[in-house]
């Protein structure tokens, strides 16, 4: 199967809905050490990314992702807003000039997202950030594809891994953002950014499910 520009637009819609539904969950999570804005920034941000993609008649996969990222960065210049925008824009740079990729290339799609976030935010794995939710999902995707599993199975495993990754942020010491200022106090809590990674992969799973039907 192929992942086309139209699929990207659908995926962005799913993500926007996912963030909208989970806005209160993210607000509460960010409220513990942060400024409670994450639910709003993520729902607004992915909404504007999805709307931008939906409203464009661009057929190029990369350019569509890049434009969606820029729209998000304008809409929500918060930490996670800018990081998520950087992820989408990095996908844009990587897949510029093509209109679809193979499903088997989807780990590279998420890897580009990861690289975009990492090169913008300069966090390391284990720093208790978004990256700690996304990294295990990419790894799970790769293994699943290497094992020749169908993409629906891959998406389920990736989502499970992202959720594990999110849960595993409890116990980590935060080094960035507002939580980073709390030192040892930060260990007890789950990282809100990693929760976003989890939601992205839950969204990806349901996108794949729906597409398979």
């Amino acid at each position, binding site marked *: 199967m192929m992942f086309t520009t139209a699929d990207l637009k659908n995926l962005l819609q799913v993500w926007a809905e996912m963030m909208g539904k989970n806005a209160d969950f993210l607000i509460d999570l960010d409220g513990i050490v942060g*400024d409670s804005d994450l639910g709003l920034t993520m729902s607004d941000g992915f909404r504007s990314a999805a709307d931008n993609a939906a409203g464009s008649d661009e057929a190029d996969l990369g350019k569509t992702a890049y434009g969606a990222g820029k729209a998000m*960065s*304008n809409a929500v*210049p918060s930490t996670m807003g*800018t990081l998520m925008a*950087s992820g989408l824009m990095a996908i844009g740079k990587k897949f510029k000039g093509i209109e679809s990729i193979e499903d088997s290339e989807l780990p590279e799609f998420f890897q580009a997202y990861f690289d975009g976030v990492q090169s*913008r935010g300069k966090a390391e794995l284990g720093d208790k950030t978004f990256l700690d939710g996304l990294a295990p999902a990419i790894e799970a995707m790769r293994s699943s594809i290497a094992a020749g599993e169908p993409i629906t199975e891959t998406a389920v495993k990736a989502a499970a891994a992202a959720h594990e990754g999110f849960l595993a942020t409890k116990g980590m010491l935060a080094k*960035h953002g*507002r939580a980073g*200022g709390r030192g040892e106090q930060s260990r007890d809590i789950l990282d809100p950014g990693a929760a976003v990674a989890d939601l992205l992969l839950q969204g990806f799973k349901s996108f794949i499910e729906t597409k398979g039907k």
Partner: protein
Amino acid sequence: MKKIINDPKNFVPEMLEGIYAAHPNEVAYVNGDLHCLVNARKHPGKVGIATGGGSGHLPLFLGFVGDGMLDGCSIGDVFQSPSAEQMFEVTKEIDQGAGVLYIYGNYGGDILNFDMAAEMADFEADIRVESVVAGDDVASGEPLAEGKKNTRRGVAGIFFVYKCAGAAAAKLKSLDEVKAVAEKVCANVRTMGVALSPCIVPRVGRPSFELAEDELEIGMGIHGEPGIRRGKMISADEMVSEMMDSILKDLPYAKDDEVAVLVNGLGGTPLEEQYVVYRQIHKILDSKGIKVYHAYVGEFATSMEMAGFSISLLKVDDELKELLAAPVDTPFFKQAQF
């Protein structure tokens, strides 16, 4: 919520409309976006200096845009970063061919956006951008050390960075030279604050933290970030002594050093009290044989109606003294040559 505002959602744009209406010959906005403020007067050949950050800290940040200081500022919502796109628009407008220097405070959201804007300037407009990030709050991280990332928050001391870099740029120094001045100031400025009461972000509608009627918090940040200790109210002299202890220790000062001093009111503290504070700072410096080259007292980096103040010391040499003494003319800050 006792605020002189209309719909909280319109707080920032209405404030900005007021600023453009009050100072039509001095500031202008670009790209049809009130959040992208630039000096109305152009200075060909000069390095452009841009800053930016969240609203709620007037005169920081936009108040220092004007002759002898900054060329542009992108403005976010209260305590929120402006977007990279807005920074990029300002960058394009203020570039005079000599490149652009970003000077801003050490906050995650601002860093990400300024970095993204610098990339846009490079990729999309071929403008050379350099960045200097100010982190002067000794209450918020380990002492600066060669090769180590500065984790300290940027607070009122950034005024000195703007002032000196702005003066260097006004002399038509190169981007590298202006950047070197900004870095030198960052290396030599230290700040510490104390808060007595919180402020209210209009859209939130309730105080960001609570302090009892007889409590203060030493080292609190300008967004209400936790400080070093919370305790009972003490006298002005005691507050100053405690804060000066931390500051003086952090960047060792020797007898006969010269400093510039900045006493900064957080917004709700009367100017009278700020001078009571300055009196004690001056006494302490005197007792250590440290000479005051120049003193600034007033509001430079506020948190809306928060009560409290901060003290910044900049260790100066001949170069910085000359740059500090240069004239400035912005709507919010004016200085004659001294």
